[in-house]
């Protein structure tokens, strides 16, 4: 975490606490999201949050801009059971091909009110924002209406792709839970989002698939525009489409940080196994330094991911 005294200029309080999520329309799911105002755990810092929803189409264009949803008091919850119906009520009916990126903004009322008189922006120390990242994850759930199949995942929207905090941003995905099997569709859902709404860098991600014995079984690449979501169907990256069994997904982006979720979708039952991945420092604390990680990401890309047999 950055120095708490560091001042973030032109901070948009819509991103003080935010939850980015992608849709899975490709597989026929609608989207349910929720927020919990856990600020009662902050003691004197407890405060109501204004919840708003933004939606972006697959190329990053805004479909819905910070539409007000609710004010959530400390200790309270808010549930949006059907994002797509909410969007339709506000005039979003299409959205084109591909997935939407949603951003659930959760803004402390004091910051909202202070920004209202200053063109929507504030100069704030990191220490005024960091506690809002600390108290809770948010949950997105995918619902297949006709079968009742569901699956969901917890995570949160941290400081990301924000040049006020770091000059370089990268991601290395490592996930050993892909399954290639009849009836199953493994995938990778990628979100290119930022705590700075001026973010405009496209993420260029190289992807490699490794079989259980460590053999390379496929690979490819994907481009994710700023403020957009992409679903990568991993089966399309296989060298041998008949491959069956488990696999590890290794993917690297050095142009922007992505939020990755790996998933397996059951085409018959519509069950969905989806979860986030672990950053490298979760596996080994020596990979905790951001500057070291950027060099390592380049190394992994060159030696393991971009390499062809």
């Amino acid at each position, binding site marked *: 975490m950055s120095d708490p005294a560091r001042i973030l200029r032109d901070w948009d309080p819509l991103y003080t606490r935010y939850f980015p999520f992608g849709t899975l329309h490709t597989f026929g799911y609608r989207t349910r999201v929720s927020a919990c105002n856990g600020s009662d755990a902050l003691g004197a810092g407890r405060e109501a949050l204004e919840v708003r929803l933004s939606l972006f189409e697959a190329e990053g264009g805004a479909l819905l801009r910070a539409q007000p949803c609710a004010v959530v008091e400390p200790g309270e919850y808010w549930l949006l059971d059907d994002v797509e119906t909410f969007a339709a009520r506000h005039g979003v009916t299409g959205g084109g091909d591909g997935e939407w990126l949603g951003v659930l903004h959760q803004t402390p009322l004091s910051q909202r009110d202070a920004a209202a008189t200053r063109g929507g922006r504030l100069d704030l120390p990191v220490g005024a924002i960091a506690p809002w990242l600390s108290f809770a994850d948010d949950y997105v759930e995918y619902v297949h209406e006709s079968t009742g199949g*569901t699956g969901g*995942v917890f995570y949160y929207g941290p400081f990301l792709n924000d040049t006020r905090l770091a000059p370089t941003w990268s991601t290395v995905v490592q996930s050993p839970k892909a*399954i290639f099997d009849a009836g199953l569709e493994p995938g990778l859902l990628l979100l290119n989002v930022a705590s700075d709404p001026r973010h405009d860098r496209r993420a260029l991600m190289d992807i490699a698939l*490794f079989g259980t014995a*460590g053999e390379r079984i496929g690979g490819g690449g994907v481009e994710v525009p700023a403020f957009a979501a992409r679903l990568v169907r991993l089966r399309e990256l296989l060298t041998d489409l008949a491959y069956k069994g488990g696999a590890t997904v290794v993917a690297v982006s050095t142009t922007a940080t992505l939020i990755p979720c790996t998933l397996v979708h059951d085409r018959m039952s519509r069950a969905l196994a989806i979860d986030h991945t*672990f950053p490298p420092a979760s596996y080994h604390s020596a*990979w905790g330094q951001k500057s070291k990680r950027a060099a390592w990401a380049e190394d992994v890309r060159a030696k393991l991911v971009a390499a062809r047999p």
Partner: protein
Amino acid sequence: MTSPTRVVRGARRRLVGAWQAGLRRSVVMLGTTPRVAYMHYWTLREGADSLVAFHNYFSLLDPHARGPCHADLRVYDADGRTLATTGIDVPARGCAQVSVRSLLPAAVAAIQTEGSLELDVLPPGDFTHERNVAGAFEVSAARFFMLYRSPAGMLATSHCIEKSQTYRGLPSPLAGLLTTRERRVPAWRCKRPIATRGLQEVRVVVVNYAESSGRLHVALRMGAGGPVVAEARRTVPPRGLLTLEHRQGDEPAAEFYTLHSEGLPTPNGKPYLWVRYGDGPAAMHHA
């Protein structure tokens, strides 16, 4: 006004912290990198299998590492008794998705249908790393995922959330003294509202990840903190399970439920939550 109890607890916490910091310095002086094992939940209910999914992450952290890593997996029953142990070598860049059902004799699997497990992963011999700073206390951690799958179409996943109490790879006096985590969580509530529209069934599993028996509690409540819909409480041995089941009936309408506990046995020992909507397959994630 600070109570005497809080003062004593605070002093004890600072003392324990200083003691643990001293032990960590000793580990650094030894030049070793301890390992942290992680724990999880498995089930064979309704014909399901549970796959322990992990990879040779050392060979990605250090792309020059070519050797296999070695994993030790220990499977416990719902009362915390060891059911099976196994060792698995995973090649560089490789992964394993170990079937828990395959580790148990059929007669055992017919009776023991859920429990907890623990995974420890040892680095390959050629794995190297640079310390962040000289003298830093660094650890590797056996992070992994569970995949749950049944012939009826259930498919779910959840990453490991809680670690084992003791560090691995340390000489015995240090291994017994240095702990990976602190005290139990006094009270807890889930951050996810559980939508009730179409909800048929809720099943909650709490694993006692602590090294001692403890009285575990979990409650399903209407709304943020309304009336209790279902509740379970019992003394659970180490690595044992507490379960709570609720089938949706004629309860008064509430948009969502929430999960609460009077105290989790360990800092991140959150329950696992199974839900079933409509006629669909059960879904699971940690709460």
